[in-house]
């Protein structure tokens, strides 16, 4: 780069900072902006975060309701529910869900929860909300692209929603959409137009993730306020940073996989197809490899589980430190382990493919790399435990959900060590043991991280508190329910009970679990009802919740609490504050907490 270019871009950087301050100058007017510019096509990162959150909540209700529907089939295979026929029409005759509908429900449950709720709803919400507020920026690097990111997600949501209502039903070949089932329209009813809509929706989703991720990365690197060095950033921001890096590097590979899948479906190609018979007739496709798709899919698919869980880890680190009134234990080790997880995430994808005929020699390396992830994960767990150790814990709902996260992350993580061994995986692959493992470690944990974040930052979002009593009920029933649902599944899986079956009562080996399945389904319904209680709490509190009267209700050190209770676009009415210390000065030198904006005193040492 020539010297002159350096000078130009230098001016540009300064120019943009100055521009930002200008932007704030006319903020007063923006409060009177039209409904459309304030609530719909908003470029304020705080509003976009709320849009992501509420869209995510809508999807979470739908996705969780689907699980209630298929749990009815699994828990009560002989009982007729006439109301099912009323809402599902010909997809449920005589009060029984048809097999086709059952597969559609499990597929959409997975797709919705993994991508639309725990990716867009979790990192979309909190990356958007917290990055500018916690690094001290007026908004994202590109507010316009940020807005586009939400609207691409919205269109992806519309397409996915539409696929639920087409005549042949939505995609039903599992959330992984393996070919040949997903590549051949004649293979199943769910492989027809529903599959095309699924691919289209997911492609739009990838665009949304890319626009968001590029913004998160460049905001964190470029827009930090004065004094906010990388090691003065809260762990939330580090977690969002690595999440965005994972997304920007892994989603494009999924997109490539989808492009090839689309050609296989419609252009007569054989990328994934070879030697196939459909309805007794041999297809002409030759030379392709269905395993190729699995490689492409899991190159995203594995980083994806960290895209889901890293933001939760960041949120939990922050909420636990604040509510223990103690500095986070091992700040640098926390960053280092996030980094290690981010790297390893790209090197373990084939552990999803141990039984595909993968060369056992190659499998050995994937076993090794997979088990290595236990190291940074354990570092994080010990650091959370030592953070709350002998802390003066405020058991707010946010803190409880954070502790719940640590609990489920340990329980689910330990079973990951079992599954990461290729020889054990031969027995456990595609059983309920896998279901139990990833639901606890990724599903429940990520949800707990998300709930912790919502309870903790709700006052910043809406200027009101969520109801605490409802929060405690929500936490305890969800925690107990999660274990009651998924703990028994480990035993079913060890006994070899395969996932994705429609009816276990016809199998001699699995009849013994009828009672257990019955029990699980009843708990599912109770937990689902409790989540509706949370949804009620959420929307009720937006309008009627206890009002926030002070700007910093949790006595936290980070920058978002230095903004006014109802911060306008631009976040700070005056200058963006300067940062002088790390974000975890709790109970230091006998002081409860010292905000990041307070300079280091003359007789004070840096943490």
């Amino acid at each position, binding site marked *: 780069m020539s010297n002159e270019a350096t000078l*130009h871009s230098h001016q540009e*950087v300064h120019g943009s900072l100055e521009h930002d301050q200008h932007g704030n100058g006319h903020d007063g007017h923006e409060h009177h902006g039209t409904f459309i510019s304030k609530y719909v096509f908003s470029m304020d990162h705080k509003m976009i975060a709320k849009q992501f959150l509420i869209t995510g909540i809508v999807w979470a209700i739908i996705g969780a309701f689907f699980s209630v529907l298929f749990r009815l089939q699994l828990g009560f295979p002989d009982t007729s529910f006439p109301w099912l026929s009323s809402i599902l029409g010909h997809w449920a005759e005589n009060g029984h869900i048809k097999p086709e509908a059952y597969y559609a429900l499990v597929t959409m449950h997975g797709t919705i929860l993994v991508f639309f709720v725990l990716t867009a709803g979790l990192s979309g919400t909190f990356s958007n909300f917290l990055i500018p507020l916690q690094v001290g920026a007026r908004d994202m*690097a590109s507010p316009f692209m940020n807005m586009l990111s939400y609207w691409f997600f919205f269109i992806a949501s519309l397409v996915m929603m539409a696929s639920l209502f087409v005549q042949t039903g939505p995609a039903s070949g599992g959330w992984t959409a393996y070919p040949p089932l997903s590549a051949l329209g004649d293979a199943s009813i769910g492989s027809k137009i529903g599959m095309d809509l699924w691919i289209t929706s997911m492609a739009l989703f990838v665009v949304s993730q890319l626009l968001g991720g*590029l913004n998160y990365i460049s905001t964190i690197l470029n827009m930090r306020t004065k004094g906010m060095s990388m090691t003065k950033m809260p762990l939330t921001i580090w977690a969002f940073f690595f999440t965005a890096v994972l997304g*920007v*590097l892994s*989603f494009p590979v999924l997109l490539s996989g989808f*492009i090839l899948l689309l050609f296989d479906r419609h252009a007569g190609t054989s990328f994934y197809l070879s030697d196939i018979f459909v309805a007794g007739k041999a297809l002409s496709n030759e030379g392709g490899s269905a395993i190729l798709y699995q490689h492409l899919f899991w*190159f995203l698919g594995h980083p994806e589980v960290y895209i889901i869980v890293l933001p939760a880890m960041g949120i939990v680190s922050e909420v636990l430190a604040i509510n223990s009134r103690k500095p986070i234990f091992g700040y640098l080790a926390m960053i280092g382990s996030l980094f290690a997880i981010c790297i390893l995430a790209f090197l373990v994808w084939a552990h999803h493919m141990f039984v595909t005929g993968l060369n056992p020699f190659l499998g050995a390396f994937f076993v090794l790399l997979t088990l290595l992830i236990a190291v940074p994960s354990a570092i994080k767990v010990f650091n959370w435990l030592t953070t709350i150790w002998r802390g003066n814990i405020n058991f707010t709902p946010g803190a409880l959900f954070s502790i719940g996260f640590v609990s489920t992350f340990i329980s689910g993580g330990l079973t990951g060590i079992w599954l990461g061994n290729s020889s054990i995986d031969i027995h456990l692959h595609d059983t309920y043991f896998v279901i139990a493992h990833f639901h606890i470690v990724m599903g429940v944990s990520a949800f707990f991280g998300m709930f912790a974040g919502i309870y903790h930052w709700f006052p910043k979002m809406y200027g009101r508190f969520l109801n605490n009593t409802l929060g405690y009920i929500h936490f305890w029933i969800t925690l107990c329910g999660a274990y009651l649902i998924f703990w028994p599944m480990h035993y079913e899986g060890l006994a070899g009970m395969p996932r994705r079956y429609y009816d276990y009562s016809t199998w001699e080996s699995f009849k013994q679990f009828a009672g257990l399945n019955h029990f699980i389904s009843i708990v599912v319904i109770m937990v689902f009802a409790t989540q509706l209680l949370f949804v009620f709490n959420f929307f009720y509190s937006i309008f009627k919740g206890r009002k926030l009267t002070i700007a910093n209700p949790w006595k936290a050190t980070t920058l978002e609490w230095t903004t006014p209770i109802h911060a306008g676009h631009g976040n700070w009415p005056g200058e963006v504050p300067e940062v002088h210390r790390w974000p975890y000065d709790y109970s230091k030198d006998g002081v409860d907490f010292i905000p990041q904006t307070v300079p280091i005193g003359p007789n004070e040492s840096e943490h």
Partner: protein
Amino acid sequence: MDTAITAKKKWWDGGYSPFNVSYGKLMMWFFLLSDAFTFGALLISYGTIRFSSISWPDPNEVFRSFPGAGEANLPLVFVSLMTFILIMSSVTMVLAVHEGHNRNRAGVAKWLAWTIVGGILFLSCQAWEWTHLWHEGAWWGRNPFMNQDGSPGSSNFTNFFFTITGFHGLHVTSGVILNIIILLNVLKGTYDDRGHYEMVEKVGLYWHFVDLVWVFVFTCFYLL
């Protein structure tokens, strides 16, 4: 404005861009990294399928035609011309960026226009090649060319060829469109008003990336 940069400046302490670049350029770099993974995945898929096949058509036999040369055997001559055109368009892009540093509007406009011409020429060449192959019976799902060992060729030869060169062509097309938009802005004087020609640099990054990808696509489909 004081632009003196001292060695003591703490670049990572916030308040500045640590790389001394605007967020836009940073985003472009990360986007290109992301896009490299898209192409990487496609090319690795191609390699996987090709190496699991027993034999594969010989590119010297498939790509031997030149417009107007009839049946003359000119292996890889046409694609060499295409590649030359695209690389020359990268050269003109470098010159456009250079003129941008000098804030020479006429110079930027001239070299950007040549870059656009190069891009359109490349796309036209690709269009001719695709049409020619189509007339020979090649398309997605159809491969008229024999393998080197004389066995009937797998349709995945053409499947990957059309998908990946098509995907690259799509990138060139969007690059040409971006270049045209930027050229119009240059002519309007937008960047003179703004005080710098950084947008030219950003589309320049994209354009060089698309050229670089072509080098890999070219190697994988025509040389190997």
